[in-house]
Every structure is written in structure tokens, then in C-alpha cells.
């Protein structure tokens, strides 16, 4: 990736790493880069911080506005902005425009940024029209995979079929659907530490669905939810492993699941 070969920014894809992936599971961001590059896009990762989602949901509009302006100036010149997280993409796409009064230049900028911001699977399927080649995972056929639809991606961005399509193409297996795949897992950002008992009950309800689906692997598209579910599964001594869906789509072996080490 030498500087001479790089196309102008207006043709590059910027990766919105997302705080949680940056800090706790870089492998997800690496997987996102690999998948986007696979379809011929040039990926750049501008030095970034946080999209402001926690502040926005806490009611800290002023602080979010500052972070939003920061993000706009970082990302607005790229062709696309892709996040391996539905909730971070939705913060930009759906909520940034709410921070500024309609008709203001900032509002206009937010709308423009929103248009080119996508959740990873939404981008790959709907924009890049990606058809992934089937890869041979040794035990994919016998593995039962369940999918948790994280709330923001599902309800704010309409992400539901896209990751399923990618997984179907790539692994050649159908998802073992949970009856409660669309019910919140109890993460909710600060909610899970503000009301830990309620949050725990909610994740326990989610786990009932995982158990009923007899899943060996649980996938999802938002690391916050996945850390919550994986953390509870592990505490309860469950054998079910949790990954971000992108980790299973790459060429390499996904390695240990969330909360596990070699």
C-alpha cells in the first residue's frame, strides 16, 4: 500500500473501527478491511476516536455534537464510511442529523456523511453486491450457528438478511434461527452497568433462545452485544462460542472466540 498507488480519498473507503473493536477485538476490524479490500476497494483508516454514541444515548447532546463535528471532518471526504457495527453506523446515519437544526450547514454535512455510511454487511451485500466464494471450514457442516440481530442495525438500518446471505454463501450453512433473535440482549451501552440485574435477566432470556436453537456458535454484528452474551455464556459455563460474523467470513481461521485465548 505505497503512497503512490493510493487513489484519491474520494475513491477510498474509510473504516470506522468502532471503539470496542479497537480496544478489545482488533480482529473484527482486520476482518472488515480484508472483506472490503476483497471487492476491490482501497481501505483507509484515518486516526479516529469515538462516534459519540454513548454520549448521545446518555442525553449529552452538546458533547455528542463536538464529537460529531470531529467525525465529519475526518470522514467526509471519503467515498464510503464502513463500520463493522450497526449501532455506530446508525449513530452517524440516523442520529447525527438530529444534532443540528435543519437547514444548517452542519445538518447538510451530516446528511451527506450519512448517505455514504454503511454497516459492513449492508455495504457488502447492498452496495458492493458481494457474492462471497464458499470456503471450506472443516466442521462447518456439523456446526449449528445462531444469529443475534442487534437492535440498532436491525431496526434503524434494516440489517437482517445481509449477514445471513454472506454467511450462507461463505459457509454453506443455514442459520439455526432463535425465536428471540430480534429481542434485545440487555447490553444497551451504559444500561448494562447502570441496571446490571435487569440486564442480566435480559441476557439470560437471550441465552434460553440460544440453548433452544442448540447453537454451537452465536454470531452477531455488534461487539457490545456480543461481549455481553459471550461474557454471560462463559460465566454460566456454556460451551457455545461467540464471534462477530465478519470473523467467520475471512480467509483465515477465526481463532479463539470472544473471551477465549489460545
Amino acid at each position, binding site marked *: 500500500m505505497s503512497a503512490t498507488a493510493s487513489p484519491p480519498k474520494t475513491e477510498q473507503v474509510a473504516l470506522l473501527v468502532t471503539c470496542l473493536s479497537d480496544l478489545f477485538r482488533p480482529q473484527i476490524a482486520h476482518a472488515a478491511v480484508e472483506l472490503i479490500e476483497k471487492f476491490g476497494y482501497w481501505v483507509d483508516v484515518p*486516526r479516529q476516536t469515538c462516534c459519540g454514541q454513548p454520549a448521545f444515548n446518555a442525553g449529552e447532546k452538546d458533547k455528542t455534537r463536538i464529537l460529531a463535528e470531529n467525525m465529519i471532518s475526518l470522514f467526509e471526504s471519503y467515498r464510503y464510511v464502513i463500520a463493522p457495527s450497526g449501532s455506530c453506523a446508525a449513530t452517524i446515519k440516523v442520529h447525527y442529523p438530529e444534532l443540528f437544526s435543519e437547514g444548517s450547514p452542519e445538518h447538510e454535512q451530516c446528511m451527506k456523511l450519512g448517505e455514504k455510511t454503511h454497516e459492513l454487511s449492508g455495504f457488502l451485500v447492498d452496495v458492493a453486491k458481494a457474492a462471497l466464494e464458499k470456503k471450506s471450514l472443516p466442521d462447518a457442516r456439523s456446526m449449528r450457528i445462531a444469529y443475534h440481530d442487534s437492535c440498532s442495525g436491525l431496526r434503524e438500518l434494516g440489517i437482517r438478511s445481509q449477514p445471513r446471505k454472506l454467511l450462507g454463501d461463505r459457509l454453506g450453512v443455514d442459520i439455526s434461527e432463535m425465536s428471540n433473535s430480534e429481542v434485545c440482549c440487555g447490553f444497551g451501552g451504559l444500561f448494562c452497568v447502570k441496571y446490571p440485574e435487569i440486564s442480566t435477566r435480559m441476557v439470560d432470556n437471550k441465552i434460553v433462545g440460544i440453548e433452544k436453537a442448540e447453537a454451537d456458535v452465536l454470531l452477531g454484528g455488534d461487539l457490545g452485544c456480543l461481549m455481553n452474551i459471550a461474557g454471560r455464556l462463559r460465566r454460566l459455563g456454556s460451551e457455545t462460542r461467540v464471534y462477530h460474523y465478519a470473523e467467520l467470513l475471512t480467509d483465515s481461521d477465526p481463532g479463539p472466540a470472544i473471551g477465549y485465548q489460545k
Partner: protein
Amino acid sequence: MQVTSRYFRTTAREALLDEDLRAAMGRAEGGFIDTRKMAVEELENFEEYREFARKTKNHVLAHLDYYLTQFESNVLASGGQVHWAGNGEEVNRIVLDICRRPDIRKITKGKSMVSEESALNAGLEAAGFEVVETDLGEYIIQLARETPSHIIAPAVHKTRQAVTDLFDEHHREAGYSRVVERLDIVNQARQVLRDHFCTADVGITGANFLIADTGSIALITNEGNGDLTANLPNIHVVVTSIEKVIPDMLALGGFLRLLGRSATGQIMSVYTTLFNGPRRIDDLDGPEEFHVVLVDSGRSEILGTQFRDILRCIKCGACMNHCPVYTSVGGHAYGWVYPGPMGSVLTPLMVGQKKAPDLPYACTLNGRCKTVCPVMIPLPDLLREHRNNLVEMGQTGVVQRWGMWLWSIVARKPVLYSMMTSLYVLKLNLLARMVPAFQRGSFKYIPMMGAWTSSRDFPVPQASTFQSQWKKRALHD
């Protein structure tokens, strides 16, 4: 009704330990959701009806004075009386004034959440009247001396066993035997209530819709108790709130298609009755007096705020049935008349934000309520709006205030941010290396993060932050 919303944390925690509640809520949740889904799918253009309802309500709210005046004059024209109540105290005073006559002793009552706001039953009882709730759920919680935990299924938190015991305790003296089966329970309630219907002097009901251009009250029930409450006594008092007015019968048709489906998954509730004034000269039955108490209690104030959308609510209960917080902690934890998502929006507005500081935060903003609300109220956005207000008023906790302040400083400075995050990852990795048990990839405990680690493991971060790894990759290339 007494406001206990400020104890949300404690009551919610206690509720989570209540196995009976868990069983009762678990059963109800599944039933409500599945039946609603079927009923909604049955109506091809359900979404168009939602849009119609949203627009109609918005229109009425924008011209509320006009429609209320029209409604009032049509009620008067049909021989009824209209009373305007600014707050709960006035509601109770007006109803007491109607009831205070020498020959009035017993009052039957259909379900009315508005009357719960001012604890009308307690007010009437204190004045010496016998008040009997006639909706089965309301009757059960009246016997149990509790308050409703759901706006359409007030006793949803009760198990059948609990009802059996309650009935036994209260009906035994009158010669009734212990009933266990669902049908027997319903039949016994029917017998007991029948006596009350026939001997009541006043009947109080709520209303689902007020039809402006005819002055009619639309009352929708499944048990028919509302009709017996309204028709048998000499006086019918309707206690209802101002935002329930709709323009005409055409609009009613639209709302009826939404209400039954959203509330109980019925295409149509069993009884839909329109009441128009008192008995006319050639009517065979009906009350001699017909009173409508129109309650404001802060609603007209909400009208002028960014929370106006909540006044579209038709009290169907779908938002709470689909709320994973509500179905976990039950309705009582919310501490006032209205629980669940709509309650968390409405309660702080009606009783004051200081009395309900937790409600706007006790939500993951998962948005499921918004997708099922028949009048398309953006409930999560309104809850966030409450949070914005709390922040502006400086009403958030110290931890949040300072935490957010620090976070926003760091997040504004990319260099500082990458230093801090790298340091944090390093620290966690060191911690993991120090404690052998953590080397398997998960922390069982992290200082200052007990709220997470008390019930969940926390993953040990992978080596270093993505951004520092990316920087290395860029240098290599």
C-alpha cells in the same frame, strides 16, 4: 395514586427475584406477541392504518380546543353533562359531588386508568361509598389491594394460584367454594359481580375514544362489564382525558382496526359500545344522568413541548408487551399508573422528572416498542429527549457527569485517545498475565467494573489496539 417511581432500582431488583411474577409474565409475553403478530398480518394494509392514525391524532392535537368544544356541545345537546377537571383533586371532587346524594351507596366501576391517576377509588371509599371494580383483572387487584401492573391486563402479574387463594379468602363467607380452573374462576367472578351490577347506584367507566361530531363515547371491552356498569345504574359517569377525542365515526373505524390487534391480538374486541347521553324518553333502559369528566392533569402542558407525540397514545399496551425491560421487572416497578415504554415517557411528565429519575434511563433504546406502536410514537427518541433534559438540568449522577466529561475530552483528541486506549489495553493485559485464572481469555473480576463482572466475564483484549496495529501495517507497506 402515590408515586413510587423513584424507588425503581430497588423495586425492580426485588421483582427480578419474584418467581411467581416471572412465571406470570413469561406466559403473558409470549401470548401477547404471537397473537398480535397474527392479527396484524391478517390486515394487509396495517401500516397504512398506522399512518392514518398517526396523522389523525396529530391533526386533532393541533386543533384540540376545536374538537373538545365540538365534543362538549354535542354531549350537552344529547342531554349529558360535561365537567372539566384540571387535575386529579378536581376529578375526585367532581365525581364525589355527583355521587353525594342520600340514596347513593354502591358504585360499580369499569376499567379506567385515568381514574387511577387520582386514586379515585380511595377517594370514594373514604367518603363512605362502596366501590366495586367490575373488570376481572381490576376486580382481582382490588381484592388484593394492589394497583394495576399493565394498562389493559391489570392483573397480568398474578398467577392463577394467587387468584384462587384471593377468591377463596373473599368469597368464602358468601358461600362460594374454592375454584381452581380458569373457567370456574371466571364464572365465580361473574356471579359475584352480577349482584353488584344489579344493586349499583352509580356506574363509572373510562372511554377509549370521544367522538367529537356526535358527542359519543366509545368503550371497548372484552367482558361486557363496561356495558353493565354503564347501563344498569341510574347515573353513568365517564372519567376520561382530553387527548382521547377524535373527529368522527370514520376515524373511529380506523382506530378500531388498530386497537384490538395491537392490544390483545384480536381483530375486534368483544364489545364495542357507543354511549350517547342519558336515556331518552322512549328508550327502554339506560341511565338517567350521563356525565363526562374531561381530565387534563398536565396534558395540555405536554401539548406545547417536544413530548407532544406521547399524547397520540391509545393505551393499547403493545409497547410494554414487547419491552424486554417491562417483561423482566413487571409493571409495579415503574411506580405509577403507566408502566413500560409509554409510562417511562409519560410518568416524568405528569408527576415531575425529579420523582421518576430512573425511568428515562431504564431502557436499552432497542426500539422494539416503536415498531409496534399503532400510532407510531417514537418512544425511544422521547426517552432520549428526557435524558437530554436531565443533563441540561444537571440532574444526572456525579459518575455520569464526570465520566462523560472526561470521555469527551479524551475523545476529542486523537493522540491522547490512542495513548489512553493503548494504556488501558496494556493494563488489562498485564492484569490478565498476573492472575493465572484470567489467562484463559476472560476476566472474572475487574476493579471498578463490578457492575459488569458481577454476572458476566469480560474478555481479555487482544494484544494491542487496532489503530496501533494499523499504524504498524502502514509503516511496513
